[in-house]
């Protein structure tokens, strides 16, 4: 797996020499910052009102700020995933550098894992960027840090799954815009699938809801590691990378 690490380092370098990584970081930071201060403002406002009314409704940073924020990140992440994965293979196919990778003594799997890992690491950087805001909570409040960590774990797992799907889609075309658009569509679909459970309770609706990546994040958002949900994400990661491997292979047999 040394080779996977070589590939991963190269991918990270190319994220960070181009403006891509910085643009994503800044956008993500801004959007999250907005959510954060919004939530905080609301929280503070509510606290003051309650004191004025004299009621002593328990205020809880974890429940009222961290949990909804993590939910927000899990949705906002959907929009950033395609921008991270779209170039992974499409660009190599367009410029012909795929020929270098494919004729080097490296296994396909090492290339795939390396690229996927780089995408996960870039996404972790985005998350780390958001953690700065939470540090503020810890300075002035006293939230429980365990649910926060579990939430981040959930976000990483969810992103890992979507990034694996994006990696697969990137092998299907030479055009990174197409790869990005399709990945975006799939991500969006995987999010809204959950909505059917709002009005339907047939088996089909439940299957669709099950496939929705967002529903599996709920437990993590509450600070609970539910093995069922963790297994769901792990399965999607595995399938995504597996189909990427098949796609690379069939690319050779076909072309």
């Amino acid at each position, binding site marked *: 797996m040394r080779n996977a690490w070589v590939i991963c380092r190269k991918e990270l*370098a190319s994220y960070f020499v181009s403006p891509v990584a910085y643009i994503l970081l800044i956008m993500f930071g801004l959007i999250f910052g907005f959510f954060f201060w919004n939530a905080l403002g609301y929280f503070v406002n509510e606290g003051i009102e309650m004191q004025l009314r004299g009621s002593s409704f328990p205020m809880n940073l974890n429940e009222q700020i961290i949990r909804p924020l993590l939910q927000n990140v899990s949705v906002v992440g959907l929009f950033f995933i395609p921008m991270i994965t779209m170039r992974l293979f499409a660009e190599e196919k367009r*410029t*012909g550098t795929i020929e270098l990778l494919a*004729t*080097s*003594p490296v296994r396909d799997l090492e290339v795939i894992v390396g690229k996927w890992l780089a995408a996960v690491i870039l996404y972790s950087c985005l998350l780390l960027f958001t953690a700065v805001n939470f540090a503020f909570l810890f300075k002035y409040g006293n939230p429980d840090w365990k649910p926060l960590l579990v939430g981040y774990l959930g976000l990483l797992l969810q992103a890992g799954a979507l990034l694996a799907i994006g990696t697969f889609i990137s092998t299907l075309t030479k055009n990174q815009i197409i790869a990005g658009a399709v990945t975006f569509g799939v991500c969006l679909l995987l999010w809204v699938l959950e909505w059917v459970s709002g009005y339907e309770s047939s088996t089909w609706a439940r299957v669709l809801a099950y496939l929705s990546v967002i529903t599996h994040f709920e437990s993590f958002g509450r600070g609970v590691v539910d093995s069922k949900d963790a297994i769901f994400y792990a399965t999607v990661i595995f399938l995504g990378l597996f189909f990427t491997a098949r796609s690379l292979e069939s690319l050779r047999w076909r072309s």
Partner: protein
Amino acid sequence: MINVKELTKRYARTTAVDHISFEVGKGQIVGFLGPNGAGKTTTMRMLTCFLPPSSGSATVAGFDVLEQPLEAKRRIGYLPETPPLYPEMEASEYLRFVGKLKGLSGEELDKRIDYVCDRCAIADVRKKLLGKLSKGYRQRVGLAQAIIHNPDVLILDEPTAGLDPKQINETRDLIKNLAGSHTIILSTHILPEVEQTCEQVIIINKGKLVATDSVRNLQARARGAESVILEIAGRNGTVEPTLVQQRLVKVSGVSNVSLKNQQDGRAIFEVESQKGQLVRGDLARAVVESGWDLNELRPASMSLEEVFLQLTGNETLAEKAAAKGAQP
């Protein structure tokens, strides 16, 4: 070093490579010649394990490309038609990356990077972004990455395509210099390239093997009878070509005499002999005895272009090439 048996590649519509067999010995430098669309790139992609063959087999450095691709790849350096460069990388960073992919590390990697930079004359662009390099430099960085792991076999797909004449010469010299330590296959659709750089030539056309031989044999083979170029000058500064022609045709064994050029009292003829006849001595005697000066007498070597076109069955073009090639 390279052993190809009945190698075939079928695409949905076309058979790009059709039952090709050949062998390349250790240390040879072989030209893989064919017009565009002949199947050169496809063959090379099969040899480098990029494409799996539809049928047939190929071994490189003793390893089957289908059975032991990793072992084969370790021993191959490959320069695809367009050099596989990452525009956002610096040249040295790129070579480091490729070196690691090929299994080098540590001090050895540093040494090899220095060595290939020196060898391919790219030391002055080590810190430049690949996207900003000129075509010639891109090609040389492409060559540098191909030899970084000191492979037994070098496979170069049209290494001089798209370069200007000066760059072409530099690249050819570079390849010739590499020949000592590697077995090289280079593809091209440009004939002089093969004549100048290669010892062996494999000619393919429409996916089929047309000929495989040494460059010298092929030239001889396509030329049935001897053909000589004569330059003749008159003693008093003028020469009457028709007179000379009449005299030369009378020499026994000569089948045809044609005037190629006439200038400043000198005339150049191409004389063809009948099959199996050696006429050079008689020609020289005839010229001198008639009171003319013989400035030059040399065998007309047929350009590989003519050979190639003859072999690939394009006769009208072959004649054109012959007419062009014989001009001084």
